């Protein structure tokens, strides 16, 4: 079984995000980069499928040189090989360009099932999985929380408001992973060591022969407005504290 998992390197959720002074993006210097958590669910599911049914798992990622770490992380978890699409031409790529780049690589690889995260936690666009399905002309199963493999088809669960859908499709297909699909594994140390020697193909835009012009451009990145500081009423006497709280709510917050 040929399984593909697409991954994106994103800032750690706890990282301090500072917008560049000119609004052209964020400052990357101090950021700790990690694998997009939703992509991690995809990688885990890919590895589970492989362990159960045999085959191999290929990791595909678009990103700058540092994204190699994330590919290695997935290889350490147990994936077999990687493709790193790395070209400065993709620096300002939008979802459309990324999806096409991924599609260009995946077309050259045998693929029965392709996993993406349902969205990346950095720009929260949630478009790549769907666009990739279009580009490849494959059925797409989005926001999947459970997956059952049955030979030539898969059956998945997709929660919706107040119910859940059970959807089936023939392979090959694209699955976008949602939280709840699985608990991603912790890479073993032998896995980490082996990952260093696993093959990763590095491809540039020219090699893929695809356009790199973004259809949508980020005009400006603006930090959220500073939140007015909250207040905590401190003190030892509950009655006095309650009185002070009441006063603040009435006079300052004008809530009562």
């Amino acid at each position: 079984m040929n399984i593909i998992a697409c991954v994106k390197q994103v800032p750690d959720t706890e990282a301090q995000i500072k917008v560049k002074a000119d609004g052209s993006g964020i400052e990357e210097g101090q950021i700790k980069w990690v694998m997009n958590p939703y992509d991690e669910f995809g990688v885990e599911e890919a590895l589970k499928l492989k362990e159960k049914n045999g085959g191999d798992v290929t990791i595909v990622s678009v990103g700058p040189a540092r994204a190699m770490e994330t590919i290695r992380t997935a290889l350490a978890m147990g994936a077999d090989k990687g493709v790193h699409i790395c070209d400065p031409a993709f620096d300002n790529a939008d979802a459309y360009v990324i999806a096409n780049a991924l599609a260009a690589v995946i077309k050259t690889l045998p693929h029965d099932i392709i996993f993406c995260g349902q969205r990346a936690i950095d720009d929260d666009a949630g478009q790549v999985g769907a666009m990739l399905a279009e580009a490849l002309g494959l059925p797409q199963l989005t926001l999947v929380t459970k997956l059952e493999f049955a030979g030539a088809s898969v059956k998945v669960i997709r929660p919706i408001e107040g119910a859940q859908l059970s959807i089936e499709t023939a392979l090959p297909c694209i699955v976008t992973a949602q939280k709840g699909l699985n608990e991603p594994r912790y890479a073993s140390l032998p896995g980490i060591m082996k990952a260093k020697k696993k093959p990763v193909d590095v491809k540039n835009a020219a090699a893929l022969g695809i356009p790199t012009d973004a259809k949508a451009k980020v005009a400006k990145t603006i930090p959220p407005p500073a939140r007015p500081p909250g207040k905590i009423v401190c003190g030892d006497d509950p009655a006095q504290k309650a009185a002070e709280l009441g006063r603040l709510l009435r006079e300052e917050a004008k809530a009562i």
Partner: protein
Amino acid sequence: MKEHEFFVGSEGREVFWNIPLPAFEIILFALTAVALAIFAYGVYRRWQMWKAMGKPEMRLDNIKERVKIVLAEVFLQKKVLKDPYPGVMHALIFFGFFVLIFGAAFDAGQHHVTEPLFSWTFLKGNFYLVFSFLMDLFGLFVLIGVVIALDRRFVKKPDRLGYRGTLDTTPDDVIVLLLIGAIIVTGFIAEALRIYVTNPSWEVWSFVGWLLSRTFTGVELDTARTLHQVIWWVHAALGLGFIAYIPYSRLLHIITTPANHFLTSFKPTGYIEPIRDFENAEAFGVGQLEEFTWKQIFDSDACTRCGRCQDGCPAYLTGKPLSPKKLVQDIKTYWLEKCPDPLKAMVAAKLAGAPAEGDAPAEETPAKALVGEVIDLHELWACTNCMYCMENCSSSIEHVPKIIDMRRYKVLTEADFSPELQLSCRNMENNSNPWGVGAHVRGDWAKELGVKTLAEDPNVEYLFYVGCSGSFDDRGKKISIAFAKILQEAGVSFGILGTEEGCCGDSAMRCGNEYLFQTLAQANIDVMNGYGVKKIIAICPHGYNALKKDYPNFGGNFEVYHHTEIIAKLIADRKIKLNEPLKGRFVYHDSCFLGRYNKIYDAPRQILKAIPGIDVVEMERKLEKSFCCGAGGARMWMEEDIGERINNARTKQAIEAGADMIAVGCPFCLTMMSDGIKDNHKEETMQAWDLAELVVKAMGREEVKPPVDTCAV
């Protein structure tokens, strides 16, 4: 053999009185030879077994120190006697037997060596009288020891002689006790019969035999002679049987326990040997018995099942499946199953026509996983690394490194460990702290205090290594602030690393994630060495211990202090003055990583003593017998879902001591004790404080807040 003349002024006795020589002597020699041969074979076979398995480990350096340890632990019974009742029991038997063996050696020495060769007898006169007295006295000691042992094993039945209420007494335990008792009793009877027949006045010095001989009044002398011969042979046979039985019974500890003391580790308490090669190993830690070192396996053969370890194990005492004794015994049982029997191997090799030399193939034993089957995973993960077992083991057994080795296997090789611990590990990887708070806020606590980072001013005497609790945990930050204020008030020159500081890695190391630990340690060491740091103060005993003992392995050689040491010194040097009286009955809870790991027991108590206005009480479990808070060994980051919570049990001990304030010197302990106070529903009347916080209050440096105040978040 010439007749001796014994009379008042030349008191003594004939060594082989009533024993027809030389016929009986020949039989006795033959029996002795058989007993020694059985003994020698048993020891040889065991020796082969000790050699058969395990990785190499050097434990034969520094022989002089090793001999000293054997003298203290074996001949002075130092650790054995720390527990008075069973200690005295063992000491009575040990010293008794020791002296009696000398007695037998004197008898044999005179009879077979000095008299035939030099016509010199020394068992006479006053020397004989004292000798007789001592023999009887120490014989009596052994008997008392045996009675106490029987009373403990069959009447008192302390929990530590079993596991969860089930005694682990084996037939061997009973045989050994009765054998020892019988040797002494038959010895006394034989002596009494001899005294009864020969009746010399000076034998009143052999007071037990003398008193016993009085009970034979009326017995025909000939009957007494016959009876004496019978008893004498029984006594001799039991004595020889004892020797032969040693290697096949718990008596083997006569050899293995002193040997284990001799083979003790000279590394600092709690030191864990780092994994030195990550690149080329296929597996990490210990997943198979033979991946232990020979010494780690030998340990289990030195265990006497005394249960001292179990008596203070926080996991065991709160109902977790772990008992250090059981763990060691389970390893031993598995070793006995798995270890190739050298005799069988030799026979098999002979039958197969192969040379008997060399390593014979191991016996076919069903494959059992060491970790998971021999040692249950709940046992493995219940350990808090508190070091009670190792500190109190009277056989110098090293439990904790075995546990960490097995955890390493689970974490590094199999990556099979609890999800909450995986999360903590990821947090340490991504944000260099187990909480997973953004690494960029690490130095924020110090912003309003004017504490400088080494980047701002590297020319300071001390680096204050704050650690994760002191940087990210809201309560922990208060300790950092308090300690920084103390240093500022005392005019100590110090700085912090701010965002350049990283997690010390203790939790990673102790959960078995050695790879992560070394990554974290190396990052800190590189920064510290980059600033030329020499002296470091830590407020967390975990960081203190790791920096002091483990960082030197990776090029981090610093003088490391705990903040209680520094504060105690500042008080003693009158650099800070504690004039503001506080209120409360305080109890100090010994942090394991401060106490047992680093023997810092006095400094925290000196600080408490210097605070005016307070009462200080002690808990029953204190100092080297202190009870863990439950957070060590990376337990801080794991669910505790079996039995009672360790921190609640410890808090109860503080309540029982009559305290309404718990003083600690560790942020992990502070969290655990604070939670314990809440769980014991004492939050209205009881509080937990770090000593630094108390000192700041007593210095009158705590900010005086208005009764009601609002502060920004």
